[in-house]
């Protein structure tokens, strides 16, 4: 098969679920925030917190230093809350959930029925602005693990939420983080009690369905002393010719000896091959290694979204804490990605590792932007950064913008980056063995990404590998 015959495969998850919605009044205003807070039955402190963020939002400006530029977003032309009508009365069990919703998730390959499920993964499914269902709650309860929608946690565990919400990403952070603090709708809350190893992977599946809606979810994960949790996040959206905004905040807190592993497979609708439509994925993700010997590891596979703009970061406060960042960012057609990480070393003997793989094809632009900052008190700290870019064709771009700061004589920072194209010899070798062009590219790209794919939990790894191949279909030749 000649590579020219290849066709661009349509976005598999681009269907819409036809379902009646309850929406907040259009536009960003105090009323909208009050509406969200009321429909979620929130206590007063939560509303005050949101309003404080909203007031702050009025005085700050949208950042504009990033590489991918986008048309101005009309924040008054968006719905900030949209939920299936059937979710209004909070179904008690899965039997009461609208079959249409269950069908949607089945279609996405996320069965919510526990018997049918892959064993070992608990799922929180978020549909537009509400959490539809959370599975395996009973089993987790036995261990004292809290895994629930954040709106539920605000009511049931207000002390924990009050203590940690906004402690990693303050409401005074940048524009989109503040916007999220003002209007966040749902997301997951995880608390792992001391000395507990979470027996299964926790997972949240985000789905944008309604049009003209922004999704603003908020995730908060707290790993108490000596605990361990692995958390997965997946996302899809229907195909539309409009751009939709997704501005999430994710906060992680790891106390003494705790470890959090956070994996993302981001597959929002990337727009069609002429760059029409797609999600603006402007996400703030930050983890704080507060305790000694704590560890936070971010793994991300970014294949979707028209524009991806995010920097999952680690603040290494505790002595001997470890931060890791593994990333694959694939951009095709007119997609744009500006992603990377920040590793802030504050404690002694802190270590961080960054492995970033960027692949650009078509007319896409892919930027790695990262910061490694070693404070003057972070004795014997260590960082290793590797960012590799792969270019396919000469209409796309690959950029690397690392910021490296070292203020300590006993610390070592190493950074390397390379940019190259797929080796002709390797392609030829594969072709010779009977693989067609597409298969050969997929094989080589998967090899290029291997270091990162290895970090993903089993359930995700296979999926991600397929996604890598699909995202690049039609880019060769």
């Amino acid at each position: 098969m000649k590579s020219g015959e290849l066709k661009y495969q349509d976005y598999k998850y681009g269907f819409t679920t036809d379902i009646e919605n309850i929406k907040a009044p259009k536009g960003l205003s105090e009323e909208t925030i009050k509406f969200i807070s009321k429909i979620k039955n929130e206590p007063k402190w939560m509303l005050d917190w949101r309003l404080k963020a909203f007031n702050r939002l009025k005085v700050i400006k949208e950042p504009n230093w990033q590489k991918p530029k986008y048309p101005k977003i009309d924040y008054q032309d968006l719905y900030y809350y949209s939920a299936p009508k059937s979710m209004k009365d909070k179904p008690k069990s899965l039997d009461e959930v609208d079959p249409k919703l269950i069908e949607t998730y089945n279609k996405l390959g996320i069965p919510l029925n526990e018997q049918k499920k892959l064993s070992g993964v608990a799922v929180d499914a978020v549909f537009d602005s509400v959490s539809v269902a959370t599975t395996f709650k009973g089993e987790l309860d036995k261990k004292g693990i809290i895994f629930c929608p954040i709106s539920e946690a605000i009511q049931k565990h207000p002390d924990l939420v009050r203590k940690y919400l906004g402690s990693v990403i303050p409401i005074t952070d940048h524009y989109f983080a503040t916007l999220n603090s003002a209007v966040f709708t749902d997301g997951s809350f995880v608390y792992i009690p001391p000395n507990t190893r979470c027996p299964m992977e926790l997972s949240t599946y985000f789905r944008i369905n309604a049009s003209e809606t922004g999704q603003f979810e908020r995730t908060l994960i707290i790993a108490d002393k000596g605990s361990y949790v692995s958390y997965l996040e997946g996302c899809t959206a229907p195909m539309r010719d409009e751009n939709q905004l997704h501005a999430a905040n994710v906060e992680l807190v790891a106390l003494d000896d705790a470890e959090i592993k956070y994996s993302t497979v981001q597959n929002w609708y990337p727009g069609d091959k002429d760059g029409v439509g797609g999600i603006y994925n402007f996400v703030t993700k930050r983890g704080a290694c507060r305790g000694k010997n704590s560890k936070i590891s971010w793994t991300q596979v970014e294949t979707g979204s028209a524009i991806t703009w995010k920097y999952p970061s680690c603040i290494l406060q505790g002595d001997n804490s470890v931060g890791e960042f593994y990333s694959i960012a694939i951009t095709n057609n007119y997609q744009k990605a500006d992603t990377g990480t920040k590793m802030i070393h504050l404690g002694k003997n802190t270590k961080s590792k960054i492995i970033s793989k960027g692949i650009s094809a078509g007319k896409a632009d892919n930027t790695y932007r990262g910061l490694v900052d070693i404070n003057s008190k972070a004795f014997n700290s260590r960082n290793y950064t590797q960012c590799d870019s792969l270019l396919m064709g000469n209409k796309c771009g690959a950029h690397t913008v690392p910021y490296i700061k070292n203020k300590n004589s006993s610390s070592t920072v190493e950074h390397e980056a390379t940019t190259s194209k797929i080796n002709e010899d390797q392609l030829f070798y594969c072709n010779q063995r009977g693989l067609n062009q597409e298969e050969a590219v997929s094989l080589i790209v998967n090899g290029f990404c291997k270091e990162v794919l290895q970090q993903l939990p089993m359930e995700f790894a296979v999926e991600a590998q397929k996604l890598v191949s699909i995202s690049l279909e039609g880019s060769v030749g």
Partner: protein
Amino acid sequence: MEELFNIDLDKISNSSNKEALDRKKNLELFFKKGLPNKKDESWKFTDFSLIINKNFKKIKNNHDFSFDEKIELIRDFDHNFIILVNGLLNSFDISFEDKSKVNIEKLNSLDDFKNQSSSNLNYLNKALSLGGFKIEIKENYKCKKPIIIYNYYSANLENKIINNSNKIKLNQNTELTLIEYNVDENSKFLKNTFETVEIAKDSVLKSISIQKSKSKGYFYKNISGSQGYNSNYQNYILTSGLRFNRVEIEMSLEKENSNCFIMSGLSLGEGEHQEIKTRINHLAPNCKSYQKIKNVLEKDSNGIYQGKIYVKDVAQKTDAYQLSKALILDDLAEFNAKPELEIYADDVKCSHGSTSGSIDKDAVHYLMTRGIQFTEAKKLLINGFLNEIFENMSEQKIKTFLEKSIEGQINGI
């Protein structure tokens, strides 16, 4: 901003009314923007405004170019020379060269500098620059000996600003080695230089800058240039011992097979700040650029490297490399780097590496077991670390001279 400066434009003699108006306009633009600070992406790691405000008061423009002292010439190798006093061309001697082929003159007109970037410091320079020198090498002439530029700064420069602009032009098939040698009378001043470099087809320009002794001066230099087919540009920055120094280089490799090398080896002592910012534009296929920046940081010194490689979509087969290495010897010292790549062509080899850390303890131990004292061992290793920069220099005498100067600087730490 206006309190920091006490500029008197009337003292500058202008060739025309238009020039006087241009100066006024540029000065206004500068006052409007002020000195750059960290909000400016290209000054990400340095608050220049703060540094100047802290160290200067009522900065005046300099008008004194008197020169009565005999300058001590370098005797290590034969050379031509140019003497600049406080940035302006004083005299020159090119007795080793064919005088019809090498043209050196005073640069007065500022019209040649229209293409420079519109940065704050460029406005300031346009407003106050009194010129500088211009070197032009005529076609098919290879200079026999290097030209040393003795950059002399007098003692009465305290709290003054020097603005100058230079031009270096190499016509087709020529060769020139320029050594900028700074001699300083230890006064605290500010210098703002803009320089353009033009290297035509098959030409080679080697540029070396080095410092005679420590200086209290604050230096800013902007070099922008273009290179023709099969041309070669090499810049060695070895100016250790300056209180503040920032060199910005923007080179455009406009035609095929051109090469650009930027090398720097610096050892920084107490209160010193050195910054190198580069941008190499690969605009044609088959070009090569190579940057190697090495810093040794003592006490509370500050070393910065911001490099950018830009590869245009047509510039296939580009080979570009950036390497920055820092030895941090004190917890008060700081090294910041931003090695950037912006690439739009796929068949390229572009990479960068950056490391910073302490001196290799095993190597020190090894030397000490051979009976070498700790401080000696350290100096030996630093020397080796920095000397690598001009390892490939072909002129043996210049190389020896540089080695000697570097050694002197290390001993001065």
